């Protein structure tokens, strides 16, 4: 089961839910699949964190485990912990 942790900036899309689970036994999933599933559950969310060409937005960070990744092709294991955070920026 993949556990996904979401930032407060996405509360409007998830009705405040910050943690989601995705049951899977597939070994071939990647981060793009996780984002697609998030979009399926919470329409509009994906475009706010990934741009029109599939790039993670500049002020969004995504982690698989404790590894920050910038590429949606990054593999996600069936028991992975995925976290999306609003990067430290702004003011």
């Amino acid at each position, binding site marked *: 089961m993949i556990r996904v942790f979401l*930032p407060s*900036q*996405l509360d409007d899309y998830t009705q405040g839910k910050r943690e989601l689970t995705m049951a899977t036994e597939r070994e071939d999933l990647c981060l793009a699949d996780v984002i697609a599933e998030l979009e399926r559950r919470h*329409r*509009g969310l994906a*475009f*706010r*964190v*990934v*741009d*029109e*060409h599939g*790039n993670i*937005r500049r*002020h*969004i960070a995504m982690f698989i485990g404790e590894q920050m990744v910038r590429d949606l092709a990054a593999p996600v294991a069936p028991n992975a912990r995925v976290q999306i955070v*609003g*990067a430290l*920026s*702004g*003011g």
Partner: protein
Amino acid sequence: MSRQQLLVGTRKGAWIIDSNADRSAWKINGPQHLGAVVSHFVADTRDPAVRLMSVGSGHLGPSIFISNDAGTSWREASSPPAFSVEPNGAARSVDHVFWLSQGHQSEPNVWYAGTSPQGLFKSVDGGGTWQEVLGFNHHPDFFEWRGGDKDGTPDGPKLHSIIVDPQNKKHLLIAMSGGGIFESVDAGESWQALNSGVAMDFYPPKEDGTEYEFGHDPHCLIMHPVQSNRLYHQNHCGLYALDRNEGNRWTRIGDNLPKEVGDIGFPIVVHPRDPDTIWVFPMDGSGQWPRTSPDGKPAVYCSHDGGASFSRQDKGFPQEQAWWTVKRQCMAVDQEDSVGVYLGTSNGQLWGSMDGGQSWQVIALDLPQIYSIEVVNIP
């Protein structure tokens, strides 16, 4: 007299401010979308219940929200503006939607959006889904027009001032910072530059002595809503007027502003019925370009003769040590007989004048940095 409603977009959300019948008292309602960067918050003259709002964020990607109940509730565009891969292989990404303009009065549900970086988008379903205006975004000369990413504002190059000619729905004008002014007479299929006569001090002079055709930095372009042959624009390099009946070459009317004030600024508005009456808010564009009120003394300048002469209007404003400025979407006029002029400042103050700029009163003091204001007439 009618009640007026001000739609205020700020760096930290949106507010709706309502007047009483004689515009002597105002009620601040909000915030909405608190924390979001609202670059533009507009109404629809074709449907009094419709509002559109550009919503950005310090973290998230750009979006557009639509209200069909005058701002009480909102739904998000299902397909916000997004760039396709361009013919030259460039894959730009919309950073924020900077500008929203409704389509022609005869075309309900048509809207246009201007983005950062520069792009032109159209919706034909009331803002729910957006498509690129490919005649513009994929024009073979587009990358030459717009210059590099450094040729823009400190928070990115922008397409703004989208105008649909009230007399001709196929006649569109847009401005780009940077890039200049362009127009189309075939609803966006083809485009021509409209920058003749406009200075471009930030580039070296051309060796052959000719003018640059594009690459300029217009800050705000307006067309008179009744006499659409009359255009004005506030540029990075001066204040200009153009009467299409007399040709296509801009005249620098800013030369008629006091030299110690200069003719640099962001916004310009025109009287709803008199095309010779305009208001501007000059800022300090000297030295380090502080972009503040010149000498810390804010003032509107008004012309009643198409820019041949200007009078200073600062009654009610602080007389010293006030270092704010007014951005390009932050000045607006109402339709009343005694025209109300409104401006929103970089330090979150909203000012109004109910006598055509002769005297000014504070409407709101402590909003976030104001990015846009629009006036809605409430019958």
